[in-house]
């Protein structure tokens, strides 16, 4: 008992046990925090989807599902490509910087099929003809829920309830192969 306390030894013990303790806690935190990441199953469901464009004719549209969201893929006709710039004055945000089709390819458009107003599914109306909702319709999407209008590139018309253009999901093109969920 009469032995003098070795303060240096005590300090060294404090520091080492503190460090070892902290490393242990941090080590054990890794599995617990990682468990919160999307599981393999969720990753598989959330993984990118591929689509072969060779069978999609000009003027046609297909709907894929990606992360529980419908994805619209439109093969634009030549007249559509000509008409789109004419609508710049009628849409809220012409989004020139995204290119005419708003995709990484000059003849296809890729959109999330969810109305930016209240998430209904807009309907595809590619015909160039007078419509009940627009006498000068040049083709596009019409949302039946509250009448939002979008052009063939998903740009929203002025004066409708939807505030913004239809969203473009991350995607990339490789020849005829389109991948949704990955940027090239």
């Amino acid at each position, binding site marked *: 008992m009469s032995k003098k306390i070795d303060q240096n030894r005590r300090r060294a013990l404090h520091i080492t046990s503190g460090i070892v303790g902290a490393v242990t806690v941090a080590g054990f935190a890794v599995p617990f925090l990682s468990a*919160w*990441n*999307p*599981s393999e199953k*969720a990753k598989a*469901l*959330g993984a990118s989807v591929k689509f072969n464009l060779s069978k999609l004719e000009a003027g046609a549209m297909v709907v894929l599902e990606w*992360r*529980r*969201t*419908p994805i619209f893929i439109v093969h634009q006709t030549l007249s559509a490509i000509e008409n789109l710039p004419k609508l710049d004055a009628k849409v809220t945000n012409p989004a020139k910087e995204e290119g005419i089709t708003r995709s990484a390819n000059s003849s296809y458009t890729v959109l999330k099929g*969810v109305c930016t107003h*209240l*998430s*209904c*599914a807009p309907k595809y109306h590619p015909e160039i003809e007078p419509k009940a909702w627009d006498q000068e319709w040049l083709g596009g999407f019409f949302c039946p829920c509250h009448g939002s209008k979008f052009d063939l590139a998903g740009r929203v018309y002025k004066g409708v309830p939807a505030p913004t253009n239809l969203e473009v999901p991350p995607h990339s093109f490789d020849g005829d192969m389109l991948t949704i969920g990955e940027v090239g």
Partner: protein
Amino acid sequence: MNKQNNSFMSWLDKRFPVTENLERHLTKHPVPKKVNFFYIFGALLMVIFMVQVITGIWLMMFYTNTEEGAFASVEYIMRDVEYGWLMRYMHSTGASAFFFLMYFHMFRGLLYGSYQKPKELVWLFGCFLLFLLMAEGFLGYVLPWGQMSYWAANVILSLFGAIPVIGPDLQVWIQGDYVLSGATLSRFFALHVVVVPLLMIALVVFHIFALHEVGAGNPEGVDIEKHRDEKGMPLDGAPFHPYKTFSALPAIGIFFVIFFSIVFFAPEGGGYFLEKPNFEEANFLKTPEHIAPVWYYAPFYSILRAITFGIPLLGITSKFLGFIIFAASIAILFVVPWLDRSKVQSIRYKGMYSKIGMILFAASFITLGYLGTKPVNELRTLIAQICTLFYFLPLILMPIYTKYEKTLEVPERL
């Protein structure tokens, strides 16, 4: 009999300090003789906390925490489980009551300067309890997996997604999926029934221990410890039992009468306690017409929505700035003990600026609450912006006006 009892107690006390702690925290604990209506809310908060824990445990026995089963299991509780409706309505009404009591309890603190030295920690633990209660309510609201559960949670989770750089990954990590889904539901269930309640129990204990260390306050802001009798009992104090206990019992009775009137006759609270769209199962593809929070989040939700502008120069979007101001509206409450520089505690003896500040603060909070439940339009947004300003200003300017304003003389005794 008495003798035997005593010897049993002394046997026990030598091994486990029952009497000492009972006397210290309950029976002999001195409390101010004269307090008012505002001082009952702490006791009522303890009562409602117990109601939530007990009804919650019973709900858990019948609830299913999966995407496929959650909504149906809540309908099952309401229709098929005996008294299941009572458990659920007590729990949902209890959530509203909890916040109602909490807001009054905190307002008392602001009015009478109950957060002032040396009660800073009592207040601080209280603020953590407010934060935890807000988290608890949010997590619980997701569990029935109705339309409003789903879309309101989406709005809040997308706030995390608005944080620059780490946001999108953080949101996916919290959700456990790329969209709000069953993975999110089951982790929210674990947090709602285990993690947050455990933290809350610990904090209530800290809150009370800290309070008993420094002694309870009173609406006059008189320090009762200054004048004591020869036994050391404060002259203006009285032992907790029987004085406080017997005055609390009738209040608890009245509280339960009101509480059960709502549970039995208006459990949906006119759509403010349980919202209409939540009687429809969650649908990933269909957003409800108007997403409104439950009334107790409405003031803070209003603040969030009032920020319609960002700081483009710093790359801060309006959504992220809204999140920052919204977080600040709660965070600023934590530092109130250090903002108040007044010589006196109670609003009764503070100066004019404190009184005006308190009125502006309370009026803004209530107005924001009203606006938060309504759809936005330009006028409402403008009013919400003004109210947000008057929510913050009285607190931000507090260090200045409390230091320089003229205060009244506080009496020596209660």
